[in-house]
């Protein structure tokens, strides 16, 4: 039943990704409008697995249901996610107040797997740094979106980071077997501002690996890079706050919108619960 649900959600992700593939390249501003942008081709996972299923009926989903989707949802990430957390904090009169965050500047998959020390970086929960899987369990999280890698590529490389990501996912599932895991792609740097492996072509390769990892593990995948990129596949200048990788409130408007589109796609293929 759980697997079925996951496949349904993955189909939703696939539809969203296919939508991105077939849409014409657009400007960053158009990307903000929510339909598409340039960037790596996001291939919808698992579409053939559910292609012949009778349960693929797409149903109407209300805005209230989308709001509700984010109850018991936790977003995990680094300083990019910290920006989203701060954006959400300013909008506590919206559904964003339902989302919880485990974010810390410079956080990485590598850090997530290291023991807790004064120097190690881990998001705080209930007054102290804890392993992500422990915090998620304490929070009673039913759904987690993870966006990491920015601080990993220059340390662990692409494949090394993916391996650690899988370990992180496994530890989360071990502690919270029922939790849904969704991976958010890494977003790009401003044109020409990449350093070492933190360059946009490498990030595209990394995102392809993330998507593959998500497919193989029955996790969801949300492409946040494309909607925030310009026609050249770099982080659009209008979304960059520091001439590097960090993002503006306008960028987080796009995050907000993409999260809701993603939730809608997931819910459209999931039977309503009455």
């Amino acid at each position, binding site marked *: 039943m759980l697997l079925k649900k996951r496949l349904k959600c993955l189909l939703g992700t696939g539809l969203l990704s296919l939508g991105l593939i077939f849409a014409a390249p657009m400007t960053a501003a158009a990307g903000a409008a929510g339909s598409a942008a340039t960037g790596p081709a996001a291939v919808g996972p698992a579409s053939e697995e559910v292609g012949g299923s009778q349960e693929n009926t797409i149903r109407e989903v209300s805005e209230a249901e989308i709001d509700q989707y984010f109850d018991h949802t936790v977003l995990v990430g680094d*300083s*990019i996610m*910290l*920006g989203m957390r*701060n*954006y959400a*904090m*300013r909008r*506590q009169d919206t559904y964003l*107040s339902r989302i*919880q965050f485990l974010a*810390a*500047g*410079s*956080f990485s998959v590598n850090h997530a797997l290291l023991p807790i020390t*004064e*120097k*190690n*970086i881990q*998001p*705080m*929960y*209930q*007054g*102290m*740094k804890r392993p992500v899987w422990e915090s998620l369990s304490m929070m009673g999280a039913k759904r987690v979106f993870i966006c990491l890698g920015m*601080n990993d590529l220059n340390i662990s490389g692409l494949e090394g980071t993916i391996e650690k990501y899988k370990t992180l996912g496994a530890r989360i599932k071990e502690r919270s077997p029922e939790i849904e895991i969704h991976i958010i792609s890494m977003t790009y740097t401003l044109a020409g501002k990449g350093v070492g492996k933190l360059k946009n072509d490498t990030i595209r390769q990394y995102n392809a690996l993330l998507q593959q990892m998500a497919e193989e593990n029955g996790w969801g995948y949300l492409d946040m890079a494309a909607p925030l990129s310009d026609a050249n596949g770099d982080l659009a200048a209008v979304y960059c*706050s*520091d001439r590097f990788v*960090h993002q503006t409130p306008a960028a987080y408007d796009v995050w907000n919108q993409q999260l809701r589109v993603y939730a809608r796609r997931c819910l459209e293929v999931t039977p309503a619960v009455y």
Partner: protein
Amino acid sequence: MKKKITAGFSMCMLAAALMTGGCGQKEAAEPATESVIETEAALSVHDIYQQIEQAVTLNVPLLLPDDFITNYYGIDLSVLEEYVFEMSEAATSAETIVIMKANDGEDTGVLADSLQEVRSSKAAEMENYLPDQFEIVEKSEVKIKGDYVYLVISEQADAILEIIEGGL
């Protein structure tokens, strides 16, 4: 800005001036200085924060919601009489201003420990990424004064601390 109670000793000053009248025109011509007795009535932390906002340009300040303070920093808000918990919205800034007044002075130790965790966590986040911000965190200190516990992480920490300490 401390609340001032003014006791006018002008009459005394005037009497003294009259008594020493022939001794020096100059002194007698000068206006009598009004003596002021100051009492140490602390401002509310919100008033103090308002003064900070007026005196210092903060970096996209964001006041943290109660749930956030409790859930993430584990601070029991019920032990506080009043508080201000501000952080910069910019992910690349370590700026943090926290002023808390405990209902009971006995809780200040626990509150200080919580702020020490916040400080330590900020330092770890900034150390290898933003050295200038790390330096600012390193210079910061959790302070206790009476029922108050406060932490200022800012490039303008000296000016902010002066306002806080002047107001408590």
